[in-house]
């Protein structure tokens, strides 16, 4: 299954949900926010949110930044 992840197309096999994708990426336990096909997915819904080929996923976190 191909996922458009943070702007780049990558292939993931055996990953069916957002939660599984996060685990696959080694990001479990990190403070993240996720958009799936342009829609924000609350933390509690990651397990139930199923992925399909061609989906767009954005994973973001907080970094250093200041005035504009």
């Amino acid at each position, binding site marked *: 299954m191909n996922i458009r992840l943070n702007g780049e197309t990558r292939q993931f096999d055996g990953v069916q949900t957002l939660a599984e994708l996060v685990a696959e990426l080694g990001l479990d336990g990190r403070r993240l926010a996720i958009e799936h096909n342009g829609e924000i997915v609350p933390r509690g819904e990651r397990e139930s949110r199923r992925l399909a080929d061609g989906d767009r996923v954005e994973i973001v976190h907080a970094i250093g930044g200041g005035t*504009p």
Partner: protein
Amino acid sequence: MAETASAIADPDDVLIVAGRRYGSRLLVGTGKYRDLTQTGEAIAAAGAEIVTVAIRRTNIGQDPDEPNLLDVVDPARFTILPNTAGCFTAEDAVRTCRLARELLDGHNLVKLEVLGDPKTLYPDMPATLAAAETLVADGFEVMVYCNDDPIAARRLEEIGCVAVMPLAAPIGSGLGIQNKYNILSIVENAGVPVLVDAGVGTASDAAVAMELGCDGVLMNTAIAEAKNPVLMASAMRHAVIAGRQAYLAGRMPRRRHASASSPLTDLPF
């Protein structure tokens, strides 16, 4: 000294943003530091309680043990102020705020910035107004980066922003307050806090902003790009206190001519 200070300073002179009270009027950014350790030391030296952070794509494949900004800037101790830096449209800014809210477990306070130009990082005010309306309607508490137009500031307040944050000079320029009259007009007409955002270069610039009656100052580059950022953070802490106290104390009138502070009579000659 501590006793003296507490005896002088009014403990009720606090910054109130969106109903929360802050003893510090210096807000800081978290960009451009050497590393997260320096970031944390500078925040501590600044005495800041509100700290702004950017929202960016997670670098996939990075070292999972890499330290995280929110470990240094603990949301339990600091008010995290996610910003929409880098957004050039209202849509992108709104989307970033929603991602931030999810990231921070429903935290509603955001710093809205919609930029009009990558070179000057000057705000796009029509887009900023549009984004502010959307965000307020969506339940956000919006602190808003804006130009120093007093009419625009009033409009942003009418929309429901919880603080207006006019730029003093271009972001990262360090040129200091350019148009004191505009900042003063905004302050005089505002019912919400006015915080100078961007343009401060050194301590006296921050003091000037506070002497004009601003409720606070947000800065990043002036601290992070000093040769010694942590010492500059401390300088800024003192400067903001100095400017605030000077504003409250009520400065002497300016005079063209001299006025002796020693009596000119009873001299022994």
